[in-house]
Structure formats: C-alpha cells, structure tokens
C-alpha cells in the first residue's frame, strides 16, 4: 500500500510577507511608536522579560499566514511608548523550524522599512558563545541592535565573571545586564533602549557592505527544511563557497568576544544541575521521577483546588443568582424568556465555568514552575524513547505536554517540529492528551462514584490518555502514515533554577487570561445555543420559552444520539446531551449537564451535590446497575473523542480539512470502541 500522506506543502503561505510595521504587529500600539523586537534562544528568559516590561499585557496572536505565535505588547518608557515584540525562540537566523523562519523574516525583511526600529538580542550568560551566534547574525543585517545579558547570577554561582562592558567593546554593540526573573535592571534597560533608538545606527558587522546591509544565509540542503523566504529579494551570498568560511568567521568573532569578557574563577566542574541530571535523566530513575512529578501535579490540582471550587460554587448559586433575579425584577424582566436565559443560561453556565478557574490556575502555575525550573527539557529527554515508539522525536513531547493544559495551543505548538510528517502526526495525536477542561468532569465523576480514591482515579485517566496517544500513534504509523522519518534529539538543557513565585504567577496570569478570553466566547455562545434549543419545543404545543426540557429540541437531539451509547452503558439522553455539548467545548460539559437537570428541578440546584445525585441515578438506570464500568466507559469516551471546535479550527489551519476529518473519525471511532469494550468487559467482572 502506498502511503496516503500528501506531499509536503509549503509551511508558510506565500501570500503574506510578515512585517513588524503591518497592522497586525500591534494594533494597540500608537501609530508610529517605535518597534523593539526581543529575540533569543529558547529558555533565555525572553518571555519573562517581555511579561515584566509589558506588565503581562501580552496580546498573542498568530502571525499572518502562519500559526507561529508572536507576542505583542506596549512598553512604557519614561519619555515614550514602544511596541514590544516577543519573537519565537531561535538559535540562529538559519531556520530549522517555521518559528525560526518567522523570526528570521521579521528581523531581516525584504523591505528595509519593515525592519524593527531596534532589535534586542537576549543573551544567556551561562551559554555566552552559543547566544552570541544569533547576535553575530543580527549584527550582520541591522545596525539598530543592543544585547541583554540574562542569567548572570547563575554564571556567577558557577565561578564565571562576565565583564558586560568588555563584551560590548569586543562586539561593537552595547550590552546591558538584566534579571527579568527578579525584575532587576529595568531602568538601565530603558536608558539603553532610549539611547539606541535616538542615537545613530551601528555599522553592521564587517561581513556586509555598510551601504547595503543584508542577511547572509547559509545553504540548506535539508530535505524537509522550511520553505525559502516569501520574496526573492533576500540575497544569498555566494552560498557554496562562503558557507564554511562564514560559520568560521562568526565563531572566531565569538571566541574573541568571549575571551575578553569571560573570566573563569575556577575550571569547569560538575555543577548541582549535573548531579541532579544524573538522577533525573538517568535510564531508569529518570522515567520514574517523571511519573512521580506528573502524579504530584495532578494530586495538587485535585486536593488543593477542591475547597476553592466549593467556595466559588456557593457564590455562583447563592448571592449571584439571587442578585441577578433581583436585578431582573427591578427592570421588570423577571419570569420570562430573559430570566430563563440569564439564570439558567448565563449564571448557571458561565458561573459553573468560573468555579473551575482555581483548577486551571493551579495547573498553569505548576506548569510554569516546571518550565521555569528547567525540568521540562529533562522531561523531553526522558520521554524521547517513548515518543520514538510512536515515531515522534522527544521534542514532540513539549507540544503534547502543552496538550494536557489545552489542546488548541498544543496543535499550533506542533510547529516546533521541522518535519512535516511529524507535525501531521503530532497534530493528530494532541486531541488524545487530556486537556484541563476535561479534568473537572473526571473530578466530578470520580468524587461522586469513587469517593476516597478520586485522586487515583483522576491520575489513572492521565495514564489512559498517554496510552491513547501511544496506541493512536502506533495505529496511524501502521496504516496511514507508514513512511515516517526520524528526527534526532539535539536538546539544550538549561541549568536548573528554583522557580521564582513572581515570574510563575505572572506567566500563570497571562495564560489564565488568555484561556478566559478564548474559552469565554465559546462557552457563552454554546450556552446560548443550548438554551435556545431548550426553549424551542420539538413536536409539542408548548409555548416557546416554557418547554419542559424533555419536550425541547435539545432533548430530541440528545435522544437521537443516545442509543449509540447504549452498548457503552450510558445511553441516557442527559448524558448524551453532555457529550453533544462537549463536542463544542469540554468546558461546557458540566454546565450543560447541570442545565438539563436545573431545567427539570430548578429549586434543587441550590443543594450541593445535586448534580452528582442526578448523574448517579441516570448511570444506574442506563447501565442496568453496572454503574462502575459505565462511569469508566463514559470517562474514557469523554477523554478520547473530539476535544472542542477550537481544536478542530487549529487542526484545520495546520493540516487541512482532509486530515482534520481523518482525525475526527479516528477520535470518535477509537473513543466509542474502547468505551464499549471497557463497559462490556467490566460488566462481566463487576
């Protein structure tokens, strides 16, 4: 059988040439505000600095025509405002990934007028020579550049003194010390940026003619390398001959700079990070430590979040609902369609979503702490072999782990993989990673049906999620994606740090706000559509807006779907309705589920645990008293079927409708098959 994969397509559509000054670059920045671009390798503290300078005012969005994310924000200097760009991490301007390509195109656009007004290269003091490679290349294409040195504290702890001024003299560009994690060095940074914007540009580094600065691109013979820049105006300088010489010239420039700026108090020795890595990346202990870490993360999210959730739940069902009712009666809108929409739709639905915010916050906080500590890179090393089992490099672990937070950015994050087929496979597997929106449903069901072991049940769901990723990967590799190249593991391990609460909180807030902003609209729209379906009668004489829920169009839809789930033990229309809503957004599952019961017995919603009771009764009835297996089957179906419409939209962007369709078929097919198997086999043993 010939492989069905379509030929690799150009990864960056040719229609749009990205530009720092285009409308998309920073809609909120004042017109004419200077554009300052932050660039640097991954893990140098670039985004932490960005969040600090813009006070977390991150307005992330995809770059036009791509799915690579570029952060934008306003940075207020004492005398002016600056549009700050947070460009994707790049080791050099010779791109190996679409991210690096966007960075390259933005820094050295075909039209010189599109260039940022200033490029700030963020340089890691603990890996100076490597960081300077990017600085060397940026210096070759623009004279408006400054260097920011981070991680000086870590370098000092390792016996390295970096003379920042000497570094500036040796490289011919200003260098400033900053510590974004501790919010230090902001004033000198502001002064340096002002001076660089107002002063004359530096002469570009000797490689280029000063009159016509241009990017020198090394030839690339990699088969799957990203497409060439969108315009032919970027000159290639005598590629074959100059490639090696150019590389050597840059390394010589770097070596001179490093020699004059770095003083070693003691020879290179084993650091604390190295000792930690002997355990955390070791062949047997490493994977065990990884599992223990993941287990701890999910224990914390279940046990710490619970009391906070209860508090918010009481707030939403008590004061907020009665407040809304009072407000409605004050403006004479009580008792009708509007009251139904506000109380049963908005307050019951969005209020339920809000009660799960603590869960998201804790999850994001822990993920930030893991990233900031440097452990995430170790996790990629440890899981490299496991990922290879499904034909993906360890790097694919990072988008997949992001999937455990939210599938939407994870699908976009598949772009870090330079190989088109790896991107396709990753984008198809991400939906099987259990995103945080599915967690509340597990928690609700686990604490209703398996009290006392809720933490373990929820942890088991995450293990099952990993098994789904592995299984679906193997299935795809042995059927549709037979020819799968392999990507070598070449991964930089940043030194471990103690995560700093301030930086972690800032990043958590940024993610949480982004989540609320994107999920909020979908949730409100979903709740409104579902409420409308509930208000419309299906074949009865009930007046619109006063339909008993079981007579509504919504119930009719759910009843039509429900028999499909009978073999899995949950063929009840309430449950099916939750799954119908879940196709749109998993965040809305609990909201819509409770809505179907609220519509039947509105008074009882004030009773804590009412939803649990109602769900229990339905599961008992639908499964013929084999409740345990039916609940497991339901949780597994919920885990494995289509995550949400937003994920589908992201997939469509990455891999096109055809493969997105294949993905939906795979999710529904696998979810239903495994759910039926679990119920039927479980019923025999229960």
């Amino acid at each position, binding site marked *: 059988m010939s492989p069905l994969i379509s030929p690799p397509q150009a990864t960056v559509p040719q229609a749009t040439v990205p530009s720092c000054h285009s409308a998309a670059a920073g809609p909120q920045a004042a017109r004419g505000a200077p554009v300052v671009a932050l660039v640097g390798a991954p893990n140098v503290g670039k985004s932490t600095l960005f969040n600090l300078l813009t006070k977390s005012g991150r307005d992330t969005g995809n770059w036009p025509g791509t799915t690579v994310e570029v952060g934008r924000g306003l940075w207020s200097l004492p005398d002016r405002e600056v549009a700050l760009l947070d460009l994707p991490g790049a080791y050099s301007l010779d791109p190996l990934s679409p991210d690096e390509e966007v960075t390259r195109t933005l820094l050295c656009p075909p039209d010189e007028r599109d260039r940022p007004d200033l490029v700030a290269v963020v340089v890691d003091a603990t*890996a100076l*020579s490597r960081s300077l490679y990017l600085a060397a290349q940026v210096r070759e294409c623009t004279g408006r550049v400054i260097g920011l040195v981070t991680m000086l504290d870590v370098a000092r702890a390792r016996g390295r003194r970096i003379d920042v001024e000497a570094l500036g003299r040796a490289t011919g560009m200003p260098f400033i010390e900053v510590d974004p994690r501790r919010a230090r060095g902001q004033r000198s940074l502001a002064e340096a940026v002002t001076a660089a914007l107002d002063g004359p540009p530096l002469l570009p580094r000797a490689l280029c003619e000063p009159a016509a600065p241009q990017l020198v691109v090394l030839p690339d013979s990699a088969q799957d390398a990203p497409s060439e820049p969108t315009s032919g105006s970027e000159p290639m300088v005598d590629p074959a001959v100059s490639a090696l010489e150019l590389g050597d010239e840059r390394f010589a420039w770097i070596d001179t700079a490093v020699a004059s700026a770095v003083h070693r108090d003691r020879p290179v020795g084993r650091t604390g990070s190295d000792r930690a890595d002997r355990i955390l990346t070791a062949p047997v202990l490493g994977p065990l430590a990884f599992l223990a870490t993941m287990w701890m993360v999910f224990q914390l999210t279940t046990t710490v979040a619970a009391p906070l959730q209860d508090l918010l739940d009481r707030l939403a069902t008590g004061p907020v609902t009665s407040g809304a009712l009072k407000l409605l009666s004050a403006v004479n809108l009580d008792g009708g369609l509007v009251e139904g929409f506000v109380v049963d739709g908005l307050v019951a639905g969005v209020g339920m979503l809000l009660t799960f915010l603590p869960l998201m916050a804790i999850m994001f906080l822990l993920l930030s702490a893991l990233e900031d500590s440097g452990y995430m890179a170790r996790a990629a090393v440890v899981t490299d072999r496991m990922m290879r089992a499904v034909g993906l490099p360890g790097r694919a672990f990072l988008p997949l782990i992001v999937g455990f937070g939210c599938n939407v950015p994870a699908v976009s994050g598949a772009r870090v993989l330079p190989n088109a087929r790896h991107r396709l496979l990753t984008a198809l597997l991400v939906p099987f990673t259990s995103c945080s929106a599915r967690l509340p449903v597990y928690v609700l069901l686990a604490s209703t049906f398996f009290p006392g072991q809720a933490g373990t049940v929820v942890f088991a769901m995450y293990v099952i999620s990993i098994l789904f990723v592995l299984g679906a990967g193997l299935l795809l590799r042995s059927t549709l994606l037979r020819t799968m190249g392999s990507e070598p593991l*070449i*991964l930089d*391990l940043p030194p471990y740090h103690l995560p700093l609460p301030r930086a972690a909180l800032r990043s958590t807030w940024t993610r949480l706000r982004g989540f609320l902003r994107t999920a909020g609209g979908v949730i409100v729209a979903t709740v409104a559509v579902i409420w409308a379906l509930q208000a419309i009668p299906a074949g009865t004489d009930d007046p619109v807006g006063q339909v008993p829920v079981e007579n509504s169009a919504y119930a009719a839809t759910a009843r039509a779907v429900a028999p499909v789930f009978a073999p899995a033990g949950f063929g009840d229309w309430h449950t099916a309705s939750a799954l119908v809503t879940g196709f749109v957004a998993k965040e809305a599952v609990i909201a819509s589920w409770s809505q179907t019961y609220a519509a039947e017995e509105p008074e009882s919603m004030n009773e804590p645990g009412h939803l649990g009771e109602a769900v229990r009764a339905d599961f008992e009835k639908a499964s013929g008293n084999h409740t345990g297996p039916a609940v497991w089957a339901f949780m597994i179906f919920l885990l494995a079927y289509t995550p949400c419409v937003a994920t589908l939209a992201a997939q469509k962007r990455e891999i096109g409708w055809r493969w997105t369709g294949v993905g939906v078929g795979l999710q529904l097919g696998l979810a239903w098959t495994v759910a039926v198997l679990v119920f039927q086999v479980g019923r025999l043993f229960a």
Partner: protein
Amino acid sequence: MESTSRRLDQLPVGSRAELGSPALEPSRCRRLAELGLRPGAQVTVLSRTPGGGRVLAVEDARIALDRATLRRIPAEPVSR
C-alpha cells in the same frame, strides 16, 4: 568515517574528547555547531539517558543527544 576512529557513543561517562566532523545532514551539523558542538571542540560525557543517549558538557552548556546522533560524531579521547 574511518573505522579506526572512535565515536561519541563509545566513550564512557566521565571521559573527555575532541570532536570531529559529524556525518549528518548540513542543517543538523549547523545546529550542533550553534550549540557549541563543532569540530575541534572539547566535550565531557556527563551522564547516560534513557535509550542510550548522553548528556554532554561543552564549556558551560549541557546538551542532550540521542544514540543515533552520537554514533555519527567522531570523537578522539583527550587526557583531562
């Protein structure tokens, strides 16, 4: 690659070696060089990772490589 020369995957943990030119596609060679793993650089093999990979120290940086990549990088042991 000459059969007599040693490769990175053959070196024991704790040993130090000088790198040769990797037998990898140019884009990978370039990425290795950008990370400091260029011909002539001295590295220390720090530890083993699952699947036969290694963590290498090159100056102050730590780079994890998998077994397949290690096998394609010639390395001559040097005394410490």
